[in-house]
């Protein structure tokens, strides 16, 4: 029975994909979209069913579909595991997925390739489900690479523009760098524990450790640490952490629903999911945890600073996503997995809402993304505005919206563990508040700065677009309740997966309340600055060429892309050109050299063959003498 349901869960989006690929074009104007939405909705229903079930029974469901392949001493099954963690992820993947599909029906309604778009979206959902539900690392890897592929396809959806294709390619390759890390990590784990199943790895590690003496134990653990580090590199690629984050802002080239679904709510959190899944491994490797925490903190602050000055509405959101992901990794590095998961969920709500809101804006402005050419949209788009405001408040950490709870938990954890990281995280949060409200003010307030033509066409988006916005805004507003400080449903729910917490829940004391107050004040300060700058003074960010100093550096993202180009892409291309033009010719010449030498010998030998019979006779006689002397050599001497 479980098998049927799980197949339904997995195959519904896949069927949607296949149907859309083959028949999508014939399915009427919005047929493809509704079909895709329905497919995801089926998955959502199945998920909901299991979610309710596990809330009651608290026993995970595991199904083994078939044996995939084996290597070394490891046999890999196509196994599906529905436990608390994966069901939680499934809930918001399919839930938000359904909403975004619905949104896309309207958003993409006049694109000629929309059936492809929905096919890709469905494929993405399928791979995401596989990623989340797989019961071993390799099945997760299928999903891991699969979502990367869908991300590639969707970023480059408007394939006629080669810049978009470049962005898609960049995303795929950056992800693949991480994937190599993931592979190496898997290899190490498979080598050490002879299994890749999540359920068996901890036992195998324990068993191995019990067999080993003290010095070998250290060695074993350091090997596992390397595995953890390698996996983390994989997570860096997928979840856009330093140094592999540069693809995510570029990925905004894709249609906005894609940015909302893949590059904000679901795929980019796969790294966090994986680390949470493998928490037992990371727990064994404190050094790696430190690395994760530091990388997360640095990413959050770097991305936040870049986000301060971006003018493209989606770019701001993209850097905000990177920054928020950094905060989640900070939490992961500190061992507070459930906190990270909490933030993933709230983030999914409000960031999806923000992206969809920005999509609504862009839709209304017919593709304009530059905030310098927006403004005063509040008047025309009230629903978009309100949902956007709620989400902005949520991401800025203003109570009682969801972001407040989750972000506050992260900062609190950081405060207890490491003060420096706490300060960095807090600064990043203040910046977040600033740039989100900068975005809000520039887009929805003051006067409209676009063309008359655009102004004429301004309108609130249709219901298919506003409905998901409203649902997400509600969730963004109240989502924090699932882990209310002191009485966290989420922590209890996840306890079977993540184990009993040694540091437990934060005891709500004076320090904690003080910290909350600090966080709120910080958020308000950020909002205040934005208010003063953009609403009070009515500033508009300068045009590209007028930027100076730090502003310019930030606007150009610290020139990281250029640095990568200079450090990696250029040298490797130069090497390639060198190989192609010089080394290939040289090698080829070397081989031809054999022929040439033979030819030359032949040419010289030809001269010997001068046709003179007299000469031939000479050689003949000399040869005869030589042969005779050779035959009787030992006799003569």
């Amino acid at each position, binding site marked *: 029975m479980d098998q049927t349901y799980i197949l339904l869960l997995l195959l519904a989006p896949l069927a949607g994909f296949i149907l859309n690929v083959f028949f999508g074009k014939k399915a009427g104007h919005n047929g493809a979209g509704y079909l895709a939405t329905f497919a995801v909705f089926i998955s959502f229903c199945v998920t909901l069913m299991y979610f309710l079930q596990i809330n009651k029974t608290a026993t995970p469901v595991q199904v083994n579909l078939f044996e995939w392949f084996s290597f070394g001493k490891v046999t890999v099954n196509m196994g599906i595991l529905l436990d608390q963690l994966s069901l939680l992820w499934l809930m918001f993947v399919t839930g938000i997925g359904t909403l975004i599909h619905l949104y896309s029906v309207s958003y993409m309604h006049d694109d000629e390739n929309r059936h492809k778009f929905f096919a890709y979206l469905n494929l993405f959902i399928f791979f995401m489900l596989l990623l989340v539900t797989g019961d071993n690392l390799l099945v997760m890897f299928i999903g891991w690479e699969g979502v990367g592929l869908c991300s590639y396809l969707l970023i480059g959806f408007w394939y006629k523009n080669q810049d978009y294709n470049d962005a898609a390619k960049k995303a795929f390759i950056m992800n693949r760098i991480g994937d190599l890390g993931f592979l190496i990590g898997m290899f190490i784990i498979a080598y050490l524990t002879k299994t890749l199943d999540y359920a068996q790895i901890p036992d195998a590690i324990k068993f191995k450790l019990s067999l080993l003496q003290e010095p070998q134990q250290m060695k074993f653990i350091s090997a596992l640490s390397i595995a953890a580090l390698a996996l983390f590199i994989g997570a860096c690629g997928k979840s856009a952490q330093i140094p592999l984050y540069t693809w995510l802002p570029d990925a905004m080239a894709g249609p906005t629903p894609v940015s909302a679904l893949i590059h904000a709510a679901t795929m980019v959190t796969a790294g966090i999911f994986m680390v949470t899944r493998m928490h037992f491994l990371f727990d064994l490797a404190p050094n790696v945890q430190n690395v994760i925490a530091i990388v997360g903190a640095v990413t959050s602050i770097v991305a936040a600073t870049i986000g301060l000055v971006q003018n493209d509405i989606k770019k701001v959101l993209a850097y905000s996503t990177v920054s928020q992901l950094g905060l989640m990794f900070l939490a992961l590095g500190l061992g507070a997995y459930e906190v990270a998961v909490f933030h993933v969920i709230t983030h999914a709500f409000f960031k999806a809402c923000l992206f969809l809101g920005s999509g609504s804006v862009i839709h209304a402005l017919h593709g304009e993304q530059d905030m310098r050419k927006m403004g005063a949209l509040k008047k025309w788009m009230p629903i978009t505005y309100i949902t956007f405001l709620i989400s902005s408040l949520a991401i800025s950490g203003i109570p009682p919206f969801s972001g407040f709870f989750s972000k506050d938990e992260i900062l609190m954890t950081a405060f207890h563990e490491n003060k420096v990281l706490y300060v960095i995280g807090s600064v990043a949060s203040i910046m977040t508040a600033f740039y989100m409200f900068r975005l809000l003010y520039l887009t929805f307030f003051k006067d409209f700065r676009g063309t008359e033509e655009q102004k004429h066409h301004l309108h609130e988006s249709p219901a298919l677009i506003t409905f998901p916005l409203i649902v997400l805004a509600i969730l963004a507003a109240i989502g924090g309740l699932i882990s209310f400080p002191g009485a966290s449903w989420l922590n209890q729910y996840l306890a079977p997966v993540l184990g009993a917490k040694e540091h437990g829940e934060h005891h709500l004391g004076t320090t904690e309340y003080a910290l909350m107050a600090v966080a709120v004040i910080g958020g308000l300060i950020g909002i205040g600055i934005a208010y003063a700058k953009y609403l009070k003074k009515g500033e508009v960010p300068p045009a590209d060429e007028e930027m100076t100093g730090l502003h310019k550096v930030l606007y150009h993202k610290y020139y990281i892309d250029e640095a990568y180009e200079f450090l990696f892409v250029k040298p490797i291309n130069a090497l390639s050109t060198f190989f192609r033009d010089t080394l290939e010719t040289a090698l080829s010449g070397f081989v031809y050299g054999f022929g040439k030498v033979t030819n030359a010998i032949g040419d010289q030998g030809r001269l010997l063959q001068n046709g003179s019979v*007299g000469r031939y006779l*000479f050689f003949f*006689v*000399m040869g005869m*003498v030589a042969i*005779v*002397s050779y035959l*009787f050599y030992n*006799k*003569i001497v």
Partner: protein
Amino acid sequence: MSTVLIIFFILSAVTLATAFLTVFTKNPIHSAIYLVLCFFSVAGHYLLFNAQFLAVVHVIVYSGAIMILFLFTVMLMNLNKEDEVHKPRTTRLAAGIIFILTCLVLLAIFIQTKPIVGPYDDTGVDYQSIKVLGNVLLNEYMVPFEFASVLLLVGMIGAVLLSKREKTEKK
């Protein structure tokens, strides 16, 4: 020093001297005549061995047939002149060196191998009379003998064909 030995030395001297002269004389006709003499002295050697039949055949084939052919050819080509240009000096020197080398190598092999020679058998059995030779030739060497005849036939045809003027080339 027995008579036979003396005869041997005289014959040998004649053989070698005429052979040398054959090679050295400029006029081909003279060469041919020296060669005839050389062949006769070789025939003398055969007689010394008491191989009369062989000696006779030798004279007939070499001095008679082959040398006449040579002389005819020489005359046919009208080479009755000392107009041959010498080979370059280096070549001649090299030829000399190789001559000496060949001699030395062959002799050295012979001397160094220190063959155990003699005592010479004298079984008294007749082994080289025409009768015996005929028997051997036509029994034991029947097949080669026939082949030799075929060879001669082919040689004859070949010689005729080769020396015939080609008629087609005129066209």
